[in-house]
């Protein structure tokens, strides 16, 4: 008797799918009780890259949340010192030997050294820079996703005129060059708010607005496409026939099915915003009070400092690169984990 070529035995050995089991066995019951999200989390936990990236991201989040506490622990702060106390004006404005590298030995007073020219403590600036970076990126990503999801849902589900109008807005915002708009906005905001006492906060707030205003279109398009295909499915039709209000169909029927694309778009938006924030600060149009990785890179990126004091540039560089890279890889891994069709 010949065996079936595509029988359960051969299939089982070629795929990741769990081998068919007796539905009444202990193991099968356990699997049956898992939600799709839990399955995805289980997959994520088995992905080594994802775990490492998650740990790195966690490290940055801890740094950001506890920036003040960690600074106090090490006895460093954002306060401006008198420059001449910490740097040597006659030695290319590099830190004095007792302040640590490059001219002296490591010191616990300034674990990451001090900045040339100003004598500010690098560690405090790095920690608070991390906080600024993550706060702005997270807030902007959340706002942009909410706007994107709502616009995408409405435009996909309602169709007709609403869809046309919303799609027009999506296209319109896509045509505005982001950098140009940011460059134009900076002096306008300055002109309007420079005498306000909380100028630094306004600056960060406006940065969040700029990032989210130019960041929601991708999500909106993605969600709209998903909704277009979902709204013709039987369960939606059934809900309609039963007379469910539109809002309930949108948020109770459709939204849970959109969890995967939403999580993916947020997880990929975050690293993009972190990089953009640093980039804008480097160009001098984002955060201008110095507490930002982008501004730290701007200060450090001169041939002289890089030759004599490379750590000064590496610190913020490594911060940005490690955070963006791990957020990106983590985003990829989440997408893979949420998509039941991927094979790796």
């Amino acid at each position, binding site marked *: 008797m010949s065996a079936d070529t595509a029988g359960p035995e051969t299939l089982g050995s070629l795929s990741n799918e769990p081998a068919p089991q007796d539905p009444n066995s202990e193991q099968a019951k356990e699997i049956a009780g898992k939600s799709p999200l839990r399955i995805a989390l289980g997959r994520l936990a088995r992905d080594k890259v994802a775990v490492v990236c998650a740990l790195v991201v966690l490290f940055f989040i801890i740094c950001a949340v506890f920036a003040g506490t960690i600074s106090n622990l090490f006895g460093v702060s954002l306060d401006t010192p008198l*420059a001449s106390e910490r740097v040597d004006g*006659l030695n*290319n404005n590099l830190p004095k030997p007792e302040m640590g590298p490059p001219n002296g030995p490591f010191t616990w007073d300034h674990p990451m050294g001090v900045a040339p*020219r100003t004598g500010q403590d690098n560690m405090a600036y790095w920690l608070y820079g991390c906080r600024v970076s993550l706060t702005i990126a997270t807030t902007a990503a959340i706002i942009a996703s909410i706007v994107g999801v709502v616009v995408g849902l409405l435009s996909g589900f309602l169709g007709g005129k609403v869809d046309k109008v919303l799609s027009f807005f999506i296209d319109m915002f896509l045509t505005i060059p982001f950098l140009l708009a940011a460059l134009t906005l900076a002096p306008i905001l300055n*002109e309007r708010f420079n*005498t306000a006492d909380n100028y630094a906060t306004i600056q960060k707030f406006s940065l969040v607005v700029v990032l989210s205003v130019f960041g929601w279109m991708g999500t909106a398009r993605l969600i709209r496409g998903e909704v277009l295909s979902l709204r013709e499915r039987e369960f939606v039709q059934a809900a309609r026939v039963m007379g469910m209000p539109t809002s309930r169909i949108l948020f109770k029927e459709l939204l849970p099915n959109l969890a995967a694309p939403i999580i993916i778009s947020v997880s990929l938006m975050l690293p993009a915003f972190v990089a953009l924030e640093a980039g804008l600060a480097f160009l001098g149009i984002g955060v*201008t009070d110095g507490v930002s990785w982008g501004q730290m890179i701007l200060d450090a990126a001169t041939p002289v*400092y890089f030759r004599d004091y490379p750590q000064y540039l590496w610190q913020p560089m490594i911060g940005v690169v490690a955070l963006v890279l791990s957020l990106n890889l983590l985003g990829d891994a989440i997408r893979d984990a949420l998509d039941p069709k991927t094979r790796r």
Partner: protein
Amino acid sequence: MKRNKPLALVAGAALLTLAACGGGSSENGDGDGGTDREIGAQEGGTKDAERQGPAPEVEGAAAGGTITVYLPGDPGPDSLDPTGGWSVTGNSIQQALTSRSLTQYSRDEEGQPVLVPDLATDLGTPNEDFTEWTFTIREDATWEDGKPVTAEEVAFGICRSLDSEAFPSGPGTEYSKTYFAGAADYEGPYTGKDPNCENYDGITVEGQDITIAMETPFPDMDYWGSFMAMGPAPLGNASKPPNYGNQPLSNGPYKIAPGGYKPNEELRLVKNEQWAAESDPARHQYADEWVFKFNQDQAKVDEIMLSDNSDSQTAVATSLGSGNYNDANSQLGERLVQQTSQCVSTLTPDYNKIKEIEVRKALAYAYPYEDVWISGGEVPGVTRDYANSIMPPGMAGKKDFQVDGEQIKYDPEKSKELLAEAGYGDKPYEITMVYYEVDPLAKDAQDQITKGFEAGGFSVKAIPVQESPYNIWLDPDNKVNKQLNMRGVNWCSDWPAGSTMLPPLLKGGAVYNTAGFDEASINDEMDSIATLPLEDQAAAWGDLDEKIMTEYFPIIPTAFRNDLFVFGTKIGNPTGDGSIGAPNYKDLFVMQ
């Protein structure tokens, strides 16, 4: 003249800055260590009316070669029209190499600038009360096309400086318009539709003599004559602006190569074969060619100059990044030249809002001088020095006094005492000022100022602005400006006389008097100094400087400014030009 970049910024990047006559130079440090580099003592301007061409040969000079000049962060002149030139960059190049005027400066052995004749045969003859000056134009000077420079052409060139609409940023708007007789009613050859300047009778020509009538006594006409605006221009339409500014006719030892002027980019000069050394008391024609490269990147230029490769051996850089000062100082020896730029940086507390002299002095004690210089990218004691008064060192009549007996340095305790004396001891005295947000160096310098002031018993509100602070300070209707009680000005002299420093900064109603200082007795004294005998004026300005500072202390001089020039190994006679704060282009050569 103002320095464009405010506060503590790199001087080399300053545009449109007219500086300095009568300055000094450097007595260079020894070649090996180079650390005890000092600026030479200065004695103000001297004059030599007898000097005749040709200029004495520079020791070891050789002919030939091309000299490349890098100008980091400096966009160069917008136009080469001699009448419109009022910037350190443009005037230093053109006056030394292409465009002659009535008088000029020569550098003597000690590095002091000496005012000597140029197109005129002497330094001019004033009448008794300096209301009429006569210059005799030499006969042997020629244009680059071989035609002689006539007295009519010189008179026409001088007349052009009266057209303040055709040359809105020219120096004539300040001097010709103010001092020449009837200038206020004459619109100039272009605006007034008078192409040959026939309707203005303040300038008369008789043979080779040009006579200029003055509205008010103008004893400094010989200094004013050293501006290229006081030089010849071809008659009629040949010199019509703005086209003439692209390729002006040269009469100096070099001429502009055909198509050699690309604004903001490059200026190429080649030998002017028609120039005769006998006709010129101070210029030389050693190199075959000059190439000026504008808008260079400071870091790149520093690398080129320090590398000493074949490109940089015949090159000159007009500034040095502060981060490279140490390397350059030990490596370059006498090829790194430190030059006073005859400029003073000041903070100007609003005289009407901060009324007590104690508070103004407290501000001076609370200003952390060296910390501001360091975080602003300057080298303390090298590119910035402590200032004791408004007149820069080297200016005739400058007195070496100290307001409080010794140099005011950062001393927050003293500042608090002074504040308490004025009755503000119980709570911080509020200071409102602006800083240029776009430049991180300006932001860092402001952080230091804030830190120092707060330690000295003040509270500081620093408003970030994204346009030049001068636009704020000089605009009386600006809403930000109305809030300020602290401003600032960086000022450079036009020639070594107190008249180009004190009145522009401290006379009631002067444009750059951002402190709003206005005391009738001081205004009167300034007016009366102009009527004193010439030899007493310098001392009178020095006395007035001391009187203002000790009795009123209206503005806080924060620094005297110096420039650094870097010369390649094959550039002969590496020196600075004390009259204008630029390399000494007249006497440079390529070693063969």
